[in-house]
């Protein structure tokens, strides 16, 4: 970058300033966390909802009508909420005023966040005779995270090799469309799934060609490709699907595969009674981690994404690798599109991805461009978006829209809090021109 040379000139001064800013921002964010915790204490712990010895029920059976299995846990709402929010305040204060290592800080953030979430759940379900169905929330979260995982892995592969993929949304749409139309007209789900993956790959191939060969600015390109995908699928939907829904737009889907043994574990058993795309998405996370950090391909990909000139010097074909990776990544985001239709057994609708591609991108950034981090963020966002389903029956004073906003706000907050600390692959978004 152009600033690199100027920055090295006054490095010591910048370092001192950076450390000072770091301590200050650590203190500010800690205090903000404590204040939010205090607000939660007042809102959750002292509200009328939890007073009068209200109890919160946590159901532990996926299907409550079943007779066997664990019986629900009942907790007294107010003491639990008070304890949890106090813990959150404590975390914020410790983070602000106690010198701690980065690792401890990360744990602290985790505890803080978890205690707030549980306090919120305790508050939301207090006094309800149905209570919260914990296994159902777990399954909803896991299913909601599937497209986010696939999308963020796709984005990860692209960015790690130096191409910004902001068009995940478009790849989802195209994948979903191709999957449904193929599955409906051939009658084969597998053909549909393959077509969906190829549809995503086609969109990514456009991205790769225009980014690498015609050197279009990649964020701009991604936005335009999203428009293109929305237009093409919307047009074909109007022309072909809306009149011939029976032939071209059937709501069919993969059936669940029950994994013997694992599926009978209490609470989380239902996680092992899902369809093939679900399993595939979760298997791909460690696979991607392994490929990226433990194989020759991964090393080369990361080299191309961080310093393409150096990679070229040692004989790596930069452009070729970028093409291959981006198009392969398209298979993943295409699979995300397949999940939206064939995975959830729903028909195609205009703009049906409804921002999931952008949340996947957010998961990638919040997860700091690592497969495990992106996975964690995807789970978090899946939880936030699906929680409103679980809470809809509880008559909480917080409208569902605010819960649905949560992933977006969390991303803004994280990006703002981490600011300069987040670092995408150095060459991400920059075309490589040999010579």
């Amino acid at each position, binding site marked *: 970058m152009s600033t690199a040379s100027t920055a090295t000139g006054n490095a010591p001064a910048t370092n001192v*300033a950076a450390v000072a800013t770091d301590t200050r921002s650590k203190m500010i964010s800690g205090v903000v966390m404590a204040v939010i915790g205090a607000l939660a204490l007042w809102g959750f712990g002292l509200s009328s909802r939890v007073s009068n010895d209200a109890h919160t029920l946590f159901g532990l059976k996926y299907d409550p009508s079943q007779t066997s299995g664990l019986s629900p846990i009942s907790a007294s709402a107010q003491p639990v909420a008070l304890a949890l929010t106090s813990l959150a305040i404590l975390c914020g204060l410790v983070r602000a005023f106690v010198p701690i290592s980065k690792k401890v800080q990360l744990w602290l953030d985790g505890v803080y966040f978890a205690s707030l979430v549980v306090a919120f759940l305790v508050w939301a379900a207090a006094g309800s005779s149905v209570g919260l169905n914990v296994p159902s929330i777990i399954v909803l979260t896991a299913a909601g995270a599937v497209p986010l995982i696939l999308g963020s892995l796709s984005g990860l592969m692209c960015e790690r090799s130096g191409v910004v993929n902001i068009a995940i949304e478009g790849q989802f749409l195209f994948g979903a469309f191709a999957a449904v139309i193929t599955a409906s007209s051939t009658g084969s789900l597998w053909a549909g799934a393959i077509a969906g993956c190829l549809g995503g790959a086609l969109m990514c191939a456009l991205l790769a060609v225009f980014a690498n*060969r015609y050197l279009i*600015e990649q964020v701009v390109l991604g936005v335009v490709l999203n428009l*293109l995908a929305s*237009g093409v699928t*919307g*047009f074909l939907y*109007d022309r072909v699907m809306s009149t011939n829904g029976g032939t071209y737009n059937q709501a069919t889907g993969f059936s669940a595969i029950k994994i013997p043994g694992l599926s009978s574990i209490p609470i989380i058993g239902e996680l092992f009674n899902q369809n093939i795309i679900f399993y595939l998405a979760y298997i791909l996370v460690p696979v991607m981690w392994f490929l990226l950090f433990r194989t020759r391909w991964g090393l080369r990909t990361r080299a191309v994404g961080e310093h393409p000139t150096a990679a070229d010097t040692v004989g790596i074909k930069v452009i070729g690798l970028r093409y291959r990776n981006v198009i392969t990544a398209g298979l993943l985001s295409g699979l995300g599109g397949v999940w939206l239709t064939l995975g959830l057994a729903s028909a195609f609708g205009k703009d049906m991805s409804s921002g999931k591609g952008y949340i996947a991108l957010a998961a990638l950034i919040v997860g700091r461009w690592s497969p495990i981090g992106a996975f964690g963020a995807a789970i978090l966002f899946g939880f936030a978006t699906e929680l409103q389903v679980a809470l809809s029956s509880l008559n909480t004073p917080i409208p569902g829209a605010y819960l649905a906003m949560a992933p977006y706000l969390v991303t803004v907050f994280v990006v703002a809090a981490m600011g300069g600390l987040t670092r995408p692959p150095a060459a991400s978004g920059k075309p490589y021109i040999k010579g």
Partner: protein
Amino acid sequence: MSTPEPEKNEAADAAKSATAAPKPQPDRPPRDWGVIIRNVFTAENGAMVTFLAIVLALVVGALMIVLSSTDTMNKLGYFFASPGDFLSSAWNDISSAYSSLFKGAIFDPATISGTPEQFFGPISNTLEYATPLIFGGLAISVAFRAGMFNIGGQGQLIVGAIFASYVGFSWTALPGVLHMIVAVLAGIIGGMLYGGIVGWLKAKRGAHEVIVTIMLNYVALLFLGGWLLNTSVFHNPAAAGQAISKPAAPSAVLPHLFGDQLFTDIGLLFAIAATFAVAWFFKRSKLGFEVRAVGLRPSAARTAGINVSRVQIASMLISGALMGLIGVTQTLGLANPNNNSLSPNIDAGLGFSAITVALLGRTKPWGVVGASLLFGALQAGGALMQTQAQVSIEIITVIQALIVIFVAAPQLVKEIFHLRAHKIDTGKGGDEVTPTVDPFHTTETINVAGGEE
């Protein structure tokens, strides 16, 4: 990023004038008609590339219309037995679609003998559709020139629309024109605030604007559709079960510009005024100069004593304000289909269309106007095409996206039409090359979520 600015006015001025000093223009070569004519057909010629890009996009659109027509595709089955059937059917599809596109956008030959209202009807529709695109294109341009990519138009225009709508239906005590002016200003302020958040987060916290704007788009959308329209303050009790707001009072509604029969409101005047203002801003104002300096090279601008943070925040405020104006015309203008009330789809995707307009207009104010007229014409014609030729208006989105992609890749257009060679400016020329504004290849300023520039 928020380093304190040392007081060094003289040095700053000197450095500024150094950056500002225009590159001495090389003497124009003597005119040679052969060269001039040849230059028309090279890929360097922006107008030629734009024209060919439009042609190409329309060709692809035509292909899609034919391929998606089940009737015509059935005739392809016996193409070799009777090719005429297929060809005439395909021609029918294309010509009926594109002729109604033209009739809806420019004029309908059948109305030559009709009333002036009928004759100018399509043009006034085009102008009405172009109005929000002008605001949006200018908004994207202002941010872009400052080195920022504002994808948050959707959110900013929604917030602007919320503000304008609230003033429109609740502050009815204000007399006549004043009510309208206050409503317009409220919309501007709404967009401004929402854009300003992005600028502030970018300048003070190093948060990348692309990510922040994308996220804030959805926050605004969910806030409006998921909550606000169901509250008693906003929800229209007459439309039970529908997420729709109370209609704005007639005094707040933007009046017709060319008489009641024509579909253009005075938003167009605002748009023209905004174009003049932005053109002046870039050319003559101090802030506009600083914006361009920051956009070209933030590090150099900082060295020259420009407060980069301030410029970034200011440009996002302006950009948001312009987006807020889209919210105004969407709620208070004639384009509103619901009796000037707020609905969840008030944005109509304009925040994204604005990006294509700004790119096609190459982030120049009058270029934006030209691009808006083109895309406005496509929108207006597309509406008629949908009803007359039963071709979904979604094809317009496809055509717009394709035009922008082709314009962004002149190399591709050159390869398709075998134009003369064109070397792509990679932006890698280093410091000796005077950086130019090129919205398509600014590889240095845009870097998703990269904190420090």
